[in-house]
């Protein structure tokens, strides 16, 4: 593959792939590994790519499979990295917030909300986490999510809703714990 073509693929799908990988893994190192492996698999199996469909959806599907493979492989040995709260060295969503004109109190509250949300998302089981991330973070349609996850649209619908309910439950539990600890 020539440099120009590959640079175009990275420009088109690189950010989306990395953002999705980060939401799935919850930390930078795993996200980098997921993206590298996804690009490798994509290029190794380039002949199976249907050029009439969006490249980024195809890449996200591969990345999702890479993630599921990693989850299975490390189910017993490395669940900390993929399922636990993000390590201290990784910046949370809240850390990425740009400085705005909002009041300090509002900014702090928002940062805390986003931090809690990320930690809650990381606690979701993989199928629900992927569905919620693809829908609410990446903004994909149910049909696109169905293609990425390789499940029927009806399953996507139920996973998204169930994922939101679980997310809310985890968020509220974290919020309660924080309140009792402070």
């Amino acid at each position, binding site marked *: 593959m020539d440099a120009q073509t590959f640079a175009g693929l990275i420009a088109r799908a690189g950010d989306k792939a990395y953002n999705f990988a980060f939401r799935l893994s919850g930390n930078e190192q795993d996200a980098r590994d997921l993206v590298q492996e996804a690009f490798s698999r994509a290029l190794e199996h380039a002949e199976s790519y249907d050029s009439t469909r969006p490249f980024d959806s195809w890449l996200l599907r591969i990345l999702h499979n890479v993630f599921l493979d990693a989850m299975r492989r490390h189910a017993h040995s490395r669940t900390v990295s993929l399922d636990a709260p993000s390590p201290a060295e990784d910046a949370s969503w809240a850390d990425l917030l740009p400085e705005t004109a909002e009041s300090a109190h509002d900014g702090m509250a928002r940062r805390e909300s986003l931090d809690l949300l990320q930690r809650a998302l990381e606690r979701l089981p993989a199928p629900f986490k992927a569905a919620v991330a693809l829908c609410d973070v990446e903004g994909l349609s149910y049909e696109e999510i169905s293609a990425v996850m390789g499940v029927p649209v009806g399953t996507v619908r139920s996973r998204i*809703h169930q994922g939101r309910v679980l997310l809310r439950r985890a968020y509220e539990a974290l919020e309660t714990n924080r309140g009792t600890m402070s």
Partner: protein
Amino acid sequence: MNEHIEGVELSSLIDGALDAAARARAAAHLSACAPCRAELESLRAFKRLAADAPRRALPADLALRLERRHVAAPPWALLTRPRVWAPAGALAAAALAAALWLRSTQAPAELPLEPLVAAHEAAAGQTLTPEPVLVASADADSAALLADDGAGGSAE
């Protein structure tokens, strides 16, 4: 009042994934059901919070690494990689060692001097003849030394 709207329907409504008829039914129910409206707003709040999260961009160094790993390099790029030269150097060293070994196992070749001499003579315009070997005899050396001494002695 009708039964409450199923949660899946509420999420689909939030995501714009209901058809027109289902959307109309949901709207009619929501207008009269506060608990369903509250649930709808709660789910929507979480969707908005996730959607508002800052996005992570692909790190520049990772993009560069991917490109280096997957893009076919032009042929001349190989020449700039030190690792490429390592096997070439090893091969050259092996070839040199083999040549020296072969040379050591063969009798030294007779060098044909005649053509070289002829060429040199043609260039110099003269014939190379072996110079006479001067064998200094002890007597001659002694005579010379004595002569020097004699000169030195006369000076005194």
